């Protein structure tokens, strides 16, 4: 019975592969079902926009000819082992030439061993933890700089804006990225002589933060730093208002970057600060398929309406970077494309892109921003600053 399955599956795959000779197939395992599914939607939109842009221009230039791009999606159900399985299936059965990592640091790390085994250049669009890249692999590249590149500039700015900010309260979701960045925040705060008066984690699926927020209120902090996914932070911001919890500085990672969060919190979003790896306000121009940050944003708005957030842009960037690497290498030979990625040193709409020896990008300067008047306003870096950091969140 199993043999029959195998036979039919193999035949179908060969047939599909035969058709696909003239296209570049890039595998994209995504958590389309399960708790991470909202993230998958963002990633997919980014990848699709890139594919559309590349194909609209006639395809990717590979040496003398042009090849169209096709993205092959597989759902790994927000389940890390399935992500690894999906990566392997994409490579061995769906015969993709390149791979985008699954979502998040954990799954990206787990799946990277598969890409390394088969020598498939893989770009991780959403993996920020340095641990993802510490296995000495040669085929993994990432578009997010490590977490401390978010907390350090943020802490400097807050410090500069008000020397009176001394007491910091941190509330983190007990999940890979939210907890990791909260820990970086603790380090950044302590480094500047601030005292961390509260640091707690909340379980995934927490429906009510009233207790934690009541305790934070009792600790009277100057700076409240909260991490979690969009729904957590919507709820938290609302409950802060319910409990009349106010502070000079409130930072949330990463929800204020998303329009859904701003819409859901309404007036409560005012003066909440955040940091991310990219922002629609940045102004870079490069030789990638989008040409510049502005034209990328315009293209995004034309297709999807609304502004792209950093996760969506990162996915599109992964595609754009891959395309440039292929074009530089002049071939879709995996080893050569890999080398082109390792030697990559160009500016793109995403920012200056250069990968370090571990494969993680080292060249970005993540923007720090604050919601002012219902709009994200960039306060750092100075080159694209739109406003000053305002104090006081009610």
């Amino acid at each position, binding site marked *: 019975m199993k043999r029959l399955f195998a036979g039919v599956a193999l035949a179908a795959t060969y047939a599909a592969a035969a058709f696909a000779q003239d296209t570049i197939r890039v595998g994209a395992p995504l958590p389309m*079902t*399960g*708790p991470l*599914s*909202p993230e998958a*939607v963002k990633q997919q939109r980014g990848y699709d926009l890139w594919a559309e842009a590349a194909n609209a221009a006639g395809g990717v230039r590979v040496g003398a000819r042009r090849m169209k791009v096709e993205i092959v999606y597989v759902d790994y159900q927000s389940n890390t082992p399935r992500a690894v399985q999906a990566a392997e299936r994409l490579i061995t059965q769906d015969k993709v030439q390149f791979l985008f990592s699954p979502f998040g640091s954990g799954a990206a790390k787990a799946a990277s061993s598969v890409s390394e085994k088969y020598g498939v250049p893989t770009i991780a669009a959403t993996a920020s933890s340095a641990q993802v890249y510490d296995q000495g692999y040669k085929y993994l590249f990432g578009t997010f700089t490590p977490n401390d590149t978010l907390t350090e500039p943020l802490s400097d700015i807050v410090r500069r804006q008000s020397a009176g900010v001394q007491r910091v309260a941190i*509330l983190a979701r*007990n999940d890979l990225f939210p907890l990791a960045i909260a820990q970086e925040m603790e380090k950044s705060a302590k480094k500047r002589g601030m005292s961390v008066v509260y640091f*707690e*984690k*909340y*379980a995934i*699926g*927490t*429906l*009510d*933060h*009233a*207790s*934690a927020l*009541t*305790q934070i209120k*009792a600790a009277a902090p100057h700076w409240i730093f909260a991490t979690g996914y*969009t*729904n957590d932070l*919507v*709820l938290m911001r609302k*409950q802060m*208002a*319910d*409990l*009349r919890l106010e502070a000079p500085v409130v930072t949330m990672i990463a929800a204020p970057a998303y329009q*859904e969060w701003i819409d*859901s919190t*309404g007036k409560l979003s005012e003066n909440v600060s955040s940091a991310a790896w990219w922002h629609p306000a940045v102004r870079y121009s490069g030789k990638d398929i989008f040409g510049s940050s502005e034209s990328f944003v315009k293209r995004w708005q034309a297709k999807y309406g609304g502004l792209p957030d950093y996760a969506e842009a990162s996915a599109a960037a992964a595609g754009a970077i891959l395309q440039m690497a292929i074009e530089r290498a002049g071939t879709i030979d995996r080893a050569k494309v890999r080398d082109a990625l390792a030697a990559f040193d160009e500016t793109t709409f995403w920012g200056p892109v250069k990968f370090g020896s571990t494969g993680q990008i080292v060249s970005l300067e993540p923007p720090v921003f604050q919601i002012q008047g219902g709009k994200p306003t960039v306060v750092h870096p100075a080159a694209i600053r739109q406003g000053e950091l305002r104090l006081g969140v009610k």
Partner: protein
Amino acid sequence: MLSLQILANGLILGGLYACIAAGFSLVWGVLNVINILHGSFIVLGGYLAFFAYSIAGIHPFLAILIAAPLFFALGYVLQAGLINRMIAAPVLLTLTLTFGLDLMLSNAMLVAFSADFRKLILEPPLGVLSLGALVLPVDRLSAMALALALTGLLYLVLARSRIGRAIVAVRMDREAAALMGVNVRRIYAVTFGLGALMAGASGALLAMIFPISPLVGPVYLGKAFVICVLGGLGSVPGAMIGGLTLGVVESFGALWFGPEHAVTLSFTLLIVVLVIRPSGLLGRKGYE
């Protein structure tokens, strides 16, 4: 003062929890069926309220009136048409059946509404009530009041109406009730319908307070489990006491042990109560 605020938080939350669990407890107590769909019904009720508000401007309090009959019908049909065929089957099979049905409903909602969290924002916002140092959000307070009223209404139906007495009779002793002329199959369907109604209605209420997504269903279900065990199966007052207890336990648990332990604490409480007193704080001995 901190403790008083924490207590207030817990009681408000607990009132909401009571509403979540009342219908679930009833179905479990009367039909001996654990309705895994309950969590998803709550979420579906939330979506109904959300879309009613964002498209037609209908206030969630009114959306309850729309949700109630719709969900009753849904529950009734589901039970009479499908679940009743398995009603005599072992616990494992009925549990697995509702689990499979829940997977289908959850997936359907995911496809229809996507997993993005929706938040119902009331314009204008209801604000906050200050009693001295105590701060009480009005929307939670009013939702809690309504939730308790709804639960109270259910209790009245069970205590006073004919069909309510019949339901209680079936819960106490199915064979005897049948012998007394009660149409047990119809009662099963009505009870399941009531359970679905409570779920949908509480979902509409909760939509004012919590973000809505198919992913939250299991969380509500987990709370319902704990409350049922605490309060006893099939007992509406039990669900109220259980709900309030759970709210307070979670609130103080987060204070004493840290917020990440609040949920663990409630589950540990469940296990401890199960081992020591399976019939719950208020219930009689349920089905084994």
